């Protein structure tokens, strides 16, 4: 039986290399990297100084938003990035929003771990502590005293999908996926499934996250996954000398729609979710399974679920974090899953340009992929000097080439592997 189709009819993104999807391609072709000294967190005493941060003040984008959202956005960077992504696209999306029915529209977002930005509240924490009080609960109770259900800090994670639900009149469901680096990839996969399962006709799927906050930045640094610039190394995915990732931040969404919705409303789709693969390692919380069995299975399942053959794949946007653990294993699994074709297919990671946005990695890389498809461009592994494997077609230069079918991979801490198969519908 033929599967119903799920199309991507719109998308938007706030990324350290693009304040909106339209800026992506210029960043890619001009080989821009967002790796800069961090502004929002004082890294003076840290063994690393850089991250991929959205440098521009975003508040101009959402100046007409409700006061409580504006206030919460000033503290919760994840919310701010998402709010900015919505307002960036608001006008353009109005005709689509007008077509949506409340009971047939849902939202699903991948969300990163919440952390109070302690650096904003140094003085308050010090004062509460000197008064003999437990500082963080006192501070949060004080900040959250308002008449709406929106907290200024420590919101339930659902606040993000509910925020978009209000904007898109999405009543069918408002889901939040909390699976670290695959959160938004799974959100897109499950959004696709909910259309196939007739839970909704339109789903706004994506995610938001920021590592540029004192607690997560130190946590990832202490875990040893951010390279210390003192040693002269940077985030260099697939390089023999790689030793860590580039902390990032991003937010975005795609609008997924059923075939019926697209046909009824005479919409020209931009892409199609062909299928996905999703598996668990069940190995160790701290490291991927070195055998790569489940990672390989996720890639294989993405192909079989899509009805695609490896020979049809034109490009792979790899997870490629630049960490010791991920990159070589990812290549091995691509090799096992795709056989001989793995040697031909151009592969690149773009994390050395826009950073690792953790829960928003999947949506950032999907939006980027859709722009690459539109502009018939394949991005290079920007900082690759000495490849960790010569068997694969790891792109060393940006290439002008048509992409019809592509895979986009993401893998998470705790051993979760999610791969999307995407078709270019602009051809």
């Amino acid at each position, binding site marked *: 039986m033929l599967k119903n189709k799920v199309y991507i009819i719109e998308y938007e993104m706030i990324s350290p290399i693009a304040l909106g999807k339209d800026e992506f391609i210029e960043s890619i072709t001009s080989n821009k990297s967002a790796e800069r000294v961090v502004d929002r967190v004082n890294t003076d*005493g840290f063994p690393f100084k850089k991250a991929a941060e959205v440098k521009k003040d975003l508040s101009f984008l959402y100046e007409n938003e409700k006061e409580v959202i504006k206030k919460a956005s000033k503290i919760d960077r994840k919310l701010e990035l998402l709010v900015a992504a919505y307002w960036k696209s608001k006008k353009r999306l109005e005709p689509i929003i007008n077509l949506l029915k409340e009971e047939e529209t849902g939202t699903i977002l991948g969300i990163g771990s919440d952390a109070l930005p302690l650096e904003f509240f140094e003085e308050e924490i010090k004062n509460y502590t000197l008064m003999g009080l*437990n500082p963080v609960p006192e501070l949060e109770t004080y900040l959250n005293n308002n008449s709406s259900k929106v907290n200024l800090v420590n*919101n339930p994670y659902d606040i993000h999908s509910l925020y978009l639900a209000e904007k898109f009149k999405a009543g069918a469901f408002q889901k939040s996926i*909390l699976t670290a680096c695959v959160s938004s990839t799974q959100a897109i996969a499950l959004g696709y499934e909910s259309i196939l399962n007739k839970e909704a006709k339109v789903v706004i799927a994506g995610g938001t996250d920021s590592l540029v906050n004192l*607690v997560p930045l130190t946590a*990832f640094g202490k875990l040893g996954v951010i390279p210390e610039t003192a040693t002269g190394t940077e985030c260099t995915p697939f390089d023999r000398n790689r030793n860590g990732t580039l902390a990032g931040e991003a937010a975005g969404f795609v609008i997924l729609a059923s075939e019926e919705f697209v046909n009824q409303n005479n919409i020209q789709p931009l892409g199609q979710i062909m299928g996905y693969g999703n598996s668990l390692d069940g190995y160790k*919380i701290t490291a991927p399974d070195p055998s790569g069995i489940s990672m390989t299975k996720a890639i294989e399942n993405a192909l079989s679920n899509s009805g695609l053959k490896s020979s049809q794949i034109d490009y792979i946007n790899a997870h490629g974090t630049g960490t010791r653990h991920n990159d070589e294993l990812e290549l091995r699994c691509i090799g096992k899953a795709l056989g001989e074709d793995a040697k031909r297919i151009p592969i690149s990671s773009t994390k050395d340009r826009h950073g690792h946005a953790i829960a928003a990695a999947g949506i950032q890389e999907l939006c980027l992929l859709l722009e690459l498809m539109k502009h018939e461009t394949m991005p290079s592994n920007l900082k690759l000097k000495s490849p960790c494997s010569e068997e694969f077609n790891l792109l060393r230069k940006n290439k002008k080439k048509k992409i019809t079918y592509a895979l986009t991979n993401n893998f998470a801490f*705790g051993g*979760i592997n999610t791969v999307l198969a995407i078709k270019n519908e602009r051809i």
Partner: protein
Amino acid sequence: MTYILDHSSFVCDNFEDEKISDLNNISVKIGKLSLDHESEFFPTRSDQKVMRDDVKMSIVTAQELLNKYNFSQKTLSNMPLFVSNGSFFGNFEKHLSRVLKVFKDASLEGSRIEIYKKIYRASPPLLAIETLTNSNMSFIAQYTGLKGNNATFGNTSTSTYYALNQGLNEIKNGENYCMVSASNGANIYSHIMNRSTSEVELTGFENTGGGHIILSRKKHNDKKVLCKITKMTNTKKVPNLYDKTIKRTWIELLKGSKSELIIFSGAIDQGVNDKDEQYLKALNIPTISIFKKYGYLGVSNLIFGIIEGIKNIKNGVKSIDVIDRDVYGRESLIRLELC
């Protein structure tokens, strides 16, 4: 048709008052979990270091449940797992006490470099893993061998409705089994998160607890199922983020129901629970309050509602509606029937 093959759970019966704010005189009654260190399924010492207490007991009860059935390795490695999770930063003070001390001791006019150097040194090396939002799911996979389709939903009580709905879709699409798990860690931060969504000043009573349900596609001869799930539905309206008033519309979800019992949850304090009870009285159907039995269980509300339903089905009730409302007012219904 989707059947419930079996379930397991854990919950606290020991409660303590925890102070949230001395300045505002706010406290909450919180369930304190007793850990079953003697269990053969208790996690290894190195894993315990990065687990919240509710995750430890979730791992024990997941293994207890799956070990009752002789699932083959192949069945386990293909079995989907959908999890819902509550709060992740269980004990901020424990994790970041040394960082907070740096702030306390810091002279704000002092050298910024020195302060941030100290903060970096004081940050715990495993914090990113200790607060990992998919920790429960990844540890269940590690200890049980479940490796199929998966997701962790969070983190209000409606997440469990979504996890269960995803499980039902898997069964509908041909999987033989699927595990759905929920784990709620109650603490002062979960209460701060929830209390400001409330229309009234809360006298909070939050509990830690969790559980697992195995869904099955068929009635197996060798494995007796406990009941079937015949309906799942939820409110299809966008919640209002700017109005704290609770608008009870469960009756709309219950329209046409012939169920003999309603099991409900959603309240975080007694006053709200009493109003829920009063509202449901109009239906003239017996009700059971999960809050009254356990306190507010967050994402575990629905799991305990279903387990309570199964107990009643065993006692002869033929059809039960398990209903819940999350802190944003999203309502859901799961219908269980004798089979």
